[in-house]
């Protein structure tokens, strides 16, 4: 496994990194955790002229919740940092559920949340959780920062809205206006395998009434599937057998699965439906217990 020749840059500030990206004219690639990029280099699927290693830039490895309840995740925050967080389950339960299902323990130690989102793999876990919760990416370029909503961030498989001289410095996931509830389920053949299907569900609850509902799917289409509209049928309702059935049918209907070695399109759609139902049924049980 021998990659093509490349130049290696190791900036110590975001500004310096952006200057290098700017100079490279689109031939550079940012290296954060490297868990997708390094294999692609070795397989020669990617052959950038320059690697911009941002691991020596201090102050990017944070994750914190601001006064308004929004979660900020810095560009060098590793998956494991989120997995080991003791507060994430209270503020952002969907993310907390996904954190332990991302790739495998080895990848989670090194890989980064923002890097994974920027990789824009249609089967990525974090992209689905971002989309279900109205998250956005903060991009910084020579002319300053801008906010790119997750729905606009991914243009296609492995392609994002980042300009060649922009770097994603942070991901932000809004806090809930009521009580945050949610979960993430993934079917994979083996730890670290790409998802056969996965489902992110996020609810804002006001007592037992759903104020806001979000949902996104991975592995069942050529992109992360936005199922926010589909699950909005829950808004204003409580979690009952009927409302759960209605929501899981609606979400399954917007999946765009294709038949492959992981299963038929019908199977994958069925898994989406089953997982939405399981997540909501479990949340309903939790609500009952709380009450």
């Amino acid at each position: 496994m021998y990659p093509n020749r490349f130049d290696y840059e190791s900036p110590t500030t975001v500004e310096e990194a952006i200057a290098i990206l700017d100079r490279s004219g689109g031939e550079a690639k940012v290296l954060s955790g490297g868990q997708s990029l390094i294999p692609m280099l070795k397989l020669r699927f990617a052959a950038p002229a320059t690697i911009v290693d941002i691991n020596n830039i201090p102050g990017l490895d944070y994750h914190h919740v601001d006064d308004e309840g929004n979660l900020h995740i810095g560009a060098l925050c590793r998956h494991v940092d989120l997995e080991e967080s003791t507060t994430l389950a209270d503020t952002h339960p969907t993310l907390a559920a996904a954190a332990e299902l991302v790739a495998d323990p080895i990848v989670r130690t090194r890989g980064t949340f923002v890097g994974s989102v920027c990789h824009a793999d249609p089967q990525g876990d974090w992209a689905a959780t971002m989309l279900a919760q109205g998250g956005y990416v903060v991009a910084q370029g020579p002319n300053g920062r801008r906010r790119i909503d997750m729905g606009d961030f991914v243009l296609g498989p492995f392609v994002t809205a980042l300009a060649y001289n922009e770097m994603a410095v942070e991901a932000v996931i809004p806090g809930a206006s009521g009580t945050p509830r949610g979960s993430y389920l993934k079917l994979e053949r083996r730890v670290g395998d790409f998802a056969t299907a996965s489902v992110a569900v996020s609810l804002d609850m006001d007592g037992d009434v759903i104020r806001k509902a979000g949902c996104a799917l991975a592995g069942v289409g050529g992109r992360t599937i936005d199922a926010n509209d589909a699950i909005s049928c829950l808004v204003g309702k409580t979690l009952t057998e009927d409302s759960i059935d209605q929501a899981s049918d609606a979400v399954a209907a917007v999946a765009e699965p294709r038949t492959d070695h992981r299963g038929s399109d019908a199977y994958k759609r069925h898994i989406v439906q089953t997982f939405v139902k399981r997540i909501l049924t479990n949340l309903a049980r939790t609500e009952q217990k709380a009450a």
Partner: protein
Amino acid sequence: MALDELKIGGMGASRRRVEDNRFIRGKGKYVDDVVLPAMLHMEILRSPVAHARIKSIDTSAAWEVPGVRLVLTGETMAARNLAWMPTLSYDTQAVIATDKVRFQGQEVAAVVADDPYIAKDACSKIVVEYEQLPAIVNPDQAKDSSAPLIRDDKVNQDSNKIFDWEIGDKEATEKAFADADVVSSLELHYPRSHPSPLEPCGSIADFDRATGKLTVYMTTQAPHIIRAAVAMVAELPEHQIRIISPDLGGGFGNKVPVYPGYVISILASILTERPVKWIEDKSGNLISTGFGRDVYLKGEMALRKDGKILGMRMHTTSDHGAFFADAQPTKFKIGLMHSTFACYDVPAAYLTSDGYYTNKAPGGVAYRCSFRVTEAMFFQERMIHAAANDLGMDQAEFRRVNLVKDDMFPYRTAFGFLTDSGQYAKCLDLGLEAIGYSSFKAEQEEARKRGKLLGIGISTMTEPLGAGNSREYDIIGIKMFDSAELRVHMTGKAILRTGAKTQGQGHETTWAQIVAHELGIPADDIVVEEGDTDTAPFGMGTYASRSTPVAGAAVAMVARKIRAKARKIAAHLLEVSEEDIEWELGRFYVRGNEERGVTIQDCALAAYSNVPDGMEPGLENNAYYDPPNLTWPFAAYICKVEVDPETGVWDVLKFVAVDDCGVRINPMVVEGQIMGGLTEAYAMANMQYITFDEEGNCIGANYIDYLLPTAWETPGFELHEVVTPCPHHPIGAKGIGECATVGGPAAFVNAVMSAIEHTGVRNVDMPLMPNRVYDAVRNGQDVSGMPPVRVD
């Protein structure tokens, strides 16, 4: 007075593996760790297509890359009569393609350069023009009369069929079926898999023009066979060839065959007169080297109402890829497939087999099984499961009725094998007890109320390990005996060398334990060395679980020769006649006067300083061991699973393994073998397979598509033992390295079937991925063949 055998690390001691000291410190020395002065690096260009005529190859741009020393094509090889080489199954295999490429990943050119990056860059500059031909990816396509002829290079080859083969008594079997009350049948596919050792294949060829000596560091499980093959293929004198197999990062059969890369690196070194290193990458290993399985099996069983098996007939169709390069004993075309049903009393049996060329990688190897025994035992235990169901009999009871009884040994199987020992029913009963078989039905009922499906699967089998006796077993004419050489130094320390080659089995630990057992020399005082053909005695190498049955026996025999000489020395030192000498572990003494004795170390010193008149000095010897029979370990594997009918996901609730491999040299090492083998069995059952799309693209040439289970999902295993010593092995041991891989898969599959067969399903082919199990449950129908690949 005798030594405590466990304290000196003798037989039965769970002595820590001495090799681990260097492995866990990262101090192992693998082929890729060897660096020779002025060494060059070689990279192979592989075919992107499965079947195509090569119209032209333009290497001019590659030659121009700075640092490139040599570019080799089929033409270069052909000029030296090296474009083709013989295989281990008397076929030929292309070293570098000249006329056609016959599988995706086939060697098309090679570049030798100052470093591997340059070699890789230059490979991408080689322009090959292909004229694509239709790809044949399974035997059904290969059989079709309109199919393109894959091996148009061979004279007299007018179809894609490689062989027809049969064994057994056809007439007696037909009669058994005529007498049957019930006939049960089953048809299944054992998917293609790949051993995928962590370390891929590689070599460093170093030809010294001045001395005429060729030294090759090579990832091989059988260095002496390689030396013989190189002598024949490259027409070099055998005494001028030295094959060194250093530490191996696993083999599992993958490192038995001779691969083109080895041969190309040898020619490259001869041409450049510099050492040439070739290290395959992971994809190269998965796409081009020896695979396992890929066999379609069907059979029928003739049964009497009371459960007695009357007869068995079976047909296998195997897919060998583009060249018939299976590593197997000469006499048998489909390995030891006919060992199937060896643990059952089957009066009549008949097996027919045919094999085909396809546009897939060649080199069927015994992937941790003794020559196709994995397929044989998988079919056996799936068939037994189906037959018990067809009779309406309990799975355990049906086995109990038909297993060979303890008093029936030696037992001649319908296909002619002689099984010699075992306590089959005892193993089965121990396993049933451990898994809680008697309460299973109630558990199953209870689980169904929770919406979960419980299943229990049994797999019982004996398999032929330790090829073999030289009457029946040879590879390319070389008889399958093995050897050991022992030198005891003056201070009583020793060096032992064998013709086997450890690749994770722990020979450095366990061989020393056999010597400790025979001589009373502490195991820590014995160093074990293997893999260098200039120093190790001739042997056939390590695969087919043959090390302990054959080389291990040779170790015991050479130690006994040493003891016999030491006895004479002891008599001399004690000034009594040899007849008056008694032996206890580590010490000779005078009969009737136990106090008067000498240790084995005393004898060693005397061998170099005070030998009796007329005796040759020194204390060393060798032994060649030709076993009288194979060894026949027995295993009962029982698995309990829970299936989620809504997703098809199944979890192993408990797995019990009862292994009888005779006397255990090092119980810890044996348990490690069983754990590893069961993990691979779980992999086969669940996820590990290679398939091909209709164009012949290999789906499984990377670890995204080819799934190896991790510690994360692998279930725990509960191990039990029964010991029935092998009657002919010097220390009563039987092979164990492969039992769990061979017998394990059927336990998992039978368990899942047991959970879902109430829906009318009879068979789901491996891999039992969730979607396949779900489809079977939902439709109440069998799922056969390989999973589809993406078509868009």
